[in-house]
């Protein structure tokens, strides 16, 4: 193991700092979702809120992975193993794109209903 007692002692401050950032990140996530004047995009939840919320979550997750899980200084095999798992997850999410942009999608196949799934967000709902 590369982590000697001395190296660990030096890292304690980093761990505390990351812990603090995680707490702060959580508070920011809640604030941007609940305080009206911090609301990005339109009023209420929309794509921009999702992007911002997930960006904060991804940052927090990266910090956990890099610092707490020591991915910032790990041996090669770990990156290979974890990376190959991630590839499949990315592929899964890519499948969603495939379903939404179906090249042979026929809107009339399911009846004449509108294919846009979120009529609630449209301004016609007044």
């Amino acid at each position, binding site marked *: 193991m590369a982590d000697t007692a001395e190296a660990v002692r030096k*890292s304690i401050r980093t761990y505390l700092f990351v812990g603090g950032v995680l707490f702060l990140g959580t508070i920011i996530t*809640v604030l941007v979702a609940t305080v009206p004047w911090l609301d990005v995009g339109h009023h209420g939840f929309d794509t921009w809120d999702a992007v911002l919320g997930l960006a904060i979550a991804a940052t927090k997750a990266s910090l956990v992975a890099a610092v707490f*899980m020591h991915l910032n200084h790990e041996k090669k095999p770990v990156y290979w193993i974890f990376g190959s798992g991630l590839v499949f997850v990315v592929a*899964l999410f890519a499948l969603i794109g495939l379903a939404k942009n179906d090249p042979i999608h026929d809107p009339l196949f399911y009846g004449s209903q509108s294919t846009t799934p979120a*009529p*609630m967000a449209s*301004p016609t*709902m*007044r």
Partner: protein
Amino acid sequence: MEIPYVVTPRKDTGLFNSKIAIWLFLASEVMLFGGFFSAYVFLRLGADYPWPERTLPVLPGLINTFVLIGSSVTVVFAWASLKMRKWRHFQIYMGITIACAALFMVFKAIEYNVKFHHQAVRLSDYTVVEGHLGYEKENGEYVLDHHGSKIEENQILIESSGVTFNTVRFHAPWVEELLSQASHRKARIRLATDVTGRTAEGGEAVTIAKAGEPLSIDLLEKIKEVHLKARSHNGAVRTAALRSEWKKAKAENPGKKGWEISSSVNIDAKALEESKTLLSEIPTIAFTVEPPVRFDFKPRDVREGEAQSRLRDDTVIDGKLLASPMVFHYVDAIDFRHLAMKAVEKGQDPISAVENSWLIKNHPFAREAWEWNKGQVAKLEAKLLEDYGVDRKTGLPKREPTAKERYRMDWKDFVAMSDGVDRGQGKIAIKEEFMGPDYKGRESSKTFPEHFSLPREQVGFASKFTPAWNTYYAIYFTITALHGLHVIGGALVLAFYLFFGRKMYDTNPEWLANRVEIGGLFWHFVDLVWIFVFPIFYLM
């Protein structure tokens, strides 16, 4: 025997073995949770109903996030303490970690419990009413069932004159329940006609049970035994008859293939009947109820019909379906989003669709709440217009109230309404943020309608807030329950190191440190999943 590479790294990987193992496991875990999260996206994009965004209470979720992040920090500190050979510190940090896990599960249990006791009903016009069911008299007392306990569920009421059981499938506890209800209402369930049949080969029909015998499980079991014996005997007899027919046909048509003669091979049913070798099968047993009385059934157990209803065990209940309204003891949300969405899909005006809905026309409270909500939406529209102005290109206001603000009134709105203040300014106790509204405490202020009756024919779909209610709750419970199992599993492993690690610490402290690092890696992963679960389910 010494286990190799638990402390010293292997030359080829540069790592001790268990670390490779945990990362292999975590890679598979990433794919597992990744699958569920992508399922979430699929379900949300494809939902044909208004997705219940920002519907979970944020405060408990936020506290749970803090708890889990805190435990992630302490588990690192526990590992660092071992590295620095400070056993006492390790014990403290690991103790805090496990306490955090327990606290997390307590909050989760409260959250689940609130949902499992919360009723939702979708009317046939897609209005959604949420609250708590309970049958209650005018004077405020509960209606009790015949056992003397409170009726907290919707009931299907049938005035029955006859019951026919499926001999094989009848469900004994339900039979007992029928007997119990009948005896409470002073009715008797008796066998309608003599049950007769041939019980031995070559014999004459005998009476198995006489008309007028009272219903009992023993009686049903007795007939079931006769029926099953006859069924298996008859099966064997028919197979033997068929076999001999085939033999005969093969002998008469030498050289022909089986499929060429198969159409002429048939059992002579009449001859078989006359030979008295077949025994009597009794697939159903009919009983009469005298005098006809009311039976109560749980909606999930019965498929109700006007003159005849059927239980899930194929018991047929003859008799008139009585008015079986769903009675809410407390209503804590009225939601017109789905109705409005349907109206927009049909090209209708959603507002007039809401105002013409059954609920608004029939329930003064719903009408009052809707009018209050319209006032709130108008205020919000004016405020958003003032704060953000108009889009120059389209001429429309830049920001508008959401569908949720326009069409949904939840318990916090009802509190604000009864407090006489604007939306979001009603007084909510901290306990209510966790446990839901304090109905009893708010009874005096009439915040929640106590008696809210929905006729059976208006009910489109009813469920508690369980995975059955909609795909949102299905994926919510799947992901959070799987995550909860990970919390429990991780906490058990870490607790093992805490309570049984001392011996290893004394003999090989580095090995224990490595073990804790492995357990810690899993624990960080559990935290990492929650970092995504919290915003996705609680804030989006």
